[in-house]
């Protein structure tokens, strides 16, 4: 059994097959970005172990359309999300994992270190580092944003895509205790329980993207909630947003219950509803569906936001922000200027100037200028650079060795 596994993973045929399949995945994953949008395509083709039939179908249809073959009703992002995930082809994670195992096992079984082969050794190490680094990036990196008005301070950034259901226990005088339930757990019918909560939650309704209104309109249905402001809200489900600069606005109806019975039904939606209160176990828990937050042990305050334009035109010349970094742990309190290609790198996070609303018209309307930073955290950001250097050195060594041999042979001849 072990011998057959070992043989399977040391096969050169496996390497070739995986590389060929990777080409197919990259091709169709790229094609799928048009009908499905970047994020769904990434998730279904590259960040998954298997590609499902609906996603692959969307990519094939797009390819056919490009060679002028008519497709009656092309598959959309909404169709893909609604369809059952029937695996039909290996995805990026599976191919990457097999290639990594293949590389390591083959290397271990066949490769014996010697100086003439040191270049190959280095090249393999570099490729392993590249693959592992990519996996670490996928798992540990995050991209978020921090929007600040002038004078405003924040100690958290908000995810570009993900949302969370939070239950905040504010009974402590010093801090809030937040129970964060990831969006992936919020599915209709799901029951959520956690040791930090004296009640359970049942998801009665969940809209991945929806429009909410306070008045009855055609196409909108009344929200089935009996607590807070939910009973007055009407909802209409919308297809998922596939544009890169858009985001879904999800909504939820929850029932909180204990062994003694139901505590009530609450409605919450991202950007639409403020926090509401559930009373249980002698405490108040603030509940809200909100954009996923990443807290930091320091705060940023926006001191100044500048949107300079070329004189006499509306063409932007410069966007820059001055922020005050305050870290109570280290006692740090300093001002930093962030502008194009000059981000703030602090405690593993990088703050790039991203959006700005700070023109003169805004000031005349009595609005405070705002500045938004893209916050990138990638603990393995160095891995691809290091991997490329190692692969480069390995190839240089190996080819250099061959070149040397060539010149030696030529000299002898």
């Amino acid at each position: 059994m072990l011998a057959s596994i070992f043989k399977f993973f040391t096969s050169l045929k496996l390497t070739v097959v995986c590389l060929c399949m990777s080409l197919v995945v990259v091709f169709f994953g790229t094609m799928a970005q048009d009908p499905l949008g970047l994020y769904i395509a990434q998730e279904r083709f590259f960040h998954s172990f298997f590609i499902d039939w609906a996603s692959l179908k969307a990519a094939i249809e797009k390819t056919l359309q490009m060679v002028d073959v008519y497709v009656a009703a092309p598959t959309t992002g909404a169709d893909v999300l609604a369809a059952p995930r029937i695996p039909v082809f290996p995805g990026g994670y599976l191919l990457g994992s097999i290639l990594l195992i293949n590389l390591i096992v083959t290397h271990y079984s066949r490769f014996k270190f010697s100086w003439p082969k040191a270049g190959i050794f280095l090249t393999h190490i570099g490729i392993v580092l590249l693959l592992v680094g990519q996996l670490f990036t996928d798992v540990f990196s995050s991209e978020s944003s921090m929007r600040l008005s002038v004078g405003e301070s924040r100690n958290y950034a908000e995810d570009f895509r993900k949302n969370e259901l939070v239950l905040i226990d504010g009974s402590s005088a010093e801090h809030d205790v937040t129970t964060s339930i990831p969006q992936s757990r919020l599915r209709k019918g799901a029951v959520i329980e956690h040791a930090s909560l004296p009640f359970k939650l049942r998801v009665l309704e969940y809209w991945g993207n929806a429009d909410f209104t306070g008045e009855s309109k055609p196409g909108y249905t009344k929200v089935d909630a009996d607590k807070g402001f939910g009973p007055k809200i009407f909802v209409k489900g919308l297809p998922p947003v596939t544009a890169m600069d858009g985001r879904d606005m999800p909504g939820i109806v929850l029932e909180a219950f204990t062994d003694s019975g139901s505590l009530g039904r609450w409605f919450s939606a991202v950007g639409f509803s403020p926090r509401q209160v559930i009373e249980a176990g002698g405490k108040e828990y603030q509940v809200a569906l909100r954009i996923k937050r990443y807290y930091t042990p320091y705060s940023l305050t926006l001191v100044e936001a500048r949107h300079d334009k070329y004189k006499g035109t509306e063409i932007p010349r410069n966007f820059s922000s001055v922020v005050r970094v305050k870290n109570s742990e280290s006692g740090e309190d300093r001002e930093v200027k962030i502008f194009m290609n000059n981000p703030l790198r602090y405690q593993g996070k990088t703050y790039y100037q991203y959006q700005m609303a700070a023109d003169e018209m805004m000031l005349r309307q009595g609005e405070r200028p705002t500045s938004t930073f893209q916050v990138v955290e990638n603990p393995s950001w160095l891995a691809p650079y290091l991997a490329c250097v190692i692969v480069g050195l390995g190839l240089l060594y190996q080819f250099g060795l061959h070149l040397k041999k060539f010149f030696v042979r030529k000299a002898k001849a």
Partner: protein
Amino acid sequence: MAGSLWVFGVAILLTGCGEKITVYQSPKEPVPKTAAHGAGNPHADEQAPPALPKLKWGRTPEGWKETEGGTMRAATFALEDETGQKAAEVAVLPFPGAAGLEDKQLVNMWREQLGLPAFSDEEVEKQRKLVKVGDAEGRLYDVAGGENSIVSVIAPHQGWMWFFKLAGKKEIVERQKSIFVEFLKDVSFVAPEPLAAPSMQSSAGDSGDGPDWKPAAHWSKQAPGMMQMAKYSATGEGGVAEISVSRLGGMAGGLGPNINRWRGQLGLSSVTDAEADQLAKPIEVKSGAARVIDLAGESGAMSVVMVSQGGATWFYKLTGPGAAVERERAALVEFVNSVNYN
């Protein structure tokens, strides 16, 4: 084959690993203003507007007539020409802090009002003259347009930014400039006294130097931001909404740039001018045609009614969580309908 099955099994196991519920501590945030178990007193959390400091001065210059200038002004003087017509005005406005405003932005705002191109940092610096304003130091800017001029002095004093503005017909402003500068030397600042909580009763015509209007009964008056004519807040189920009124000359920068700026504030992407035009839906208000823009984004929602009136654009802006904006939308339109511009 066995190897393939093994890989498949590992893959399925890995696929099954989902995100976990996490518990973390974070700095305290304010308790929500609407509780699920009842809204309680809708005005319970309203804040009193900050009290304004006062201005004292010695002798009022000849030809200056002190007039009522509105709640946000510390003093207003009307300056008449030879025919007895009001030809210029001196206004004194204190604002808390500097709110991130720079002299360049202010100077260019005044220049834009007079139809002049914007100045660079260097040009603004060249224009700057230092003058004495009581026991403080002020920065004087002289902006002269075709028929009108503005002489402004910006003077920071004990956390407040004071604006002294002489504006009107060019010849009157030029003639009065030296008197204005002398007047500034003679002023003194009086620290603000705490104000009583705002009245919960709405009243018509509370806009000071603006037109008459009737805010909704449940709106509570707030201290307006810089350049705003009025500001209200409305509390209820769905959260707190803010209503502000501002007025800008002419087209106020155009529809597209305004809509894109508001979209940016809500985390939404920019739209083209044609798309912006579609977003601004025409509505009928008492004073005539107006346009309403409803926007909802990740950080809340906004409803803005734009009314063109007397060569200016009036912005009636409602902001807050989506549910609060939905709740107050009808009241906003009613408020706009109550405005008497005459």
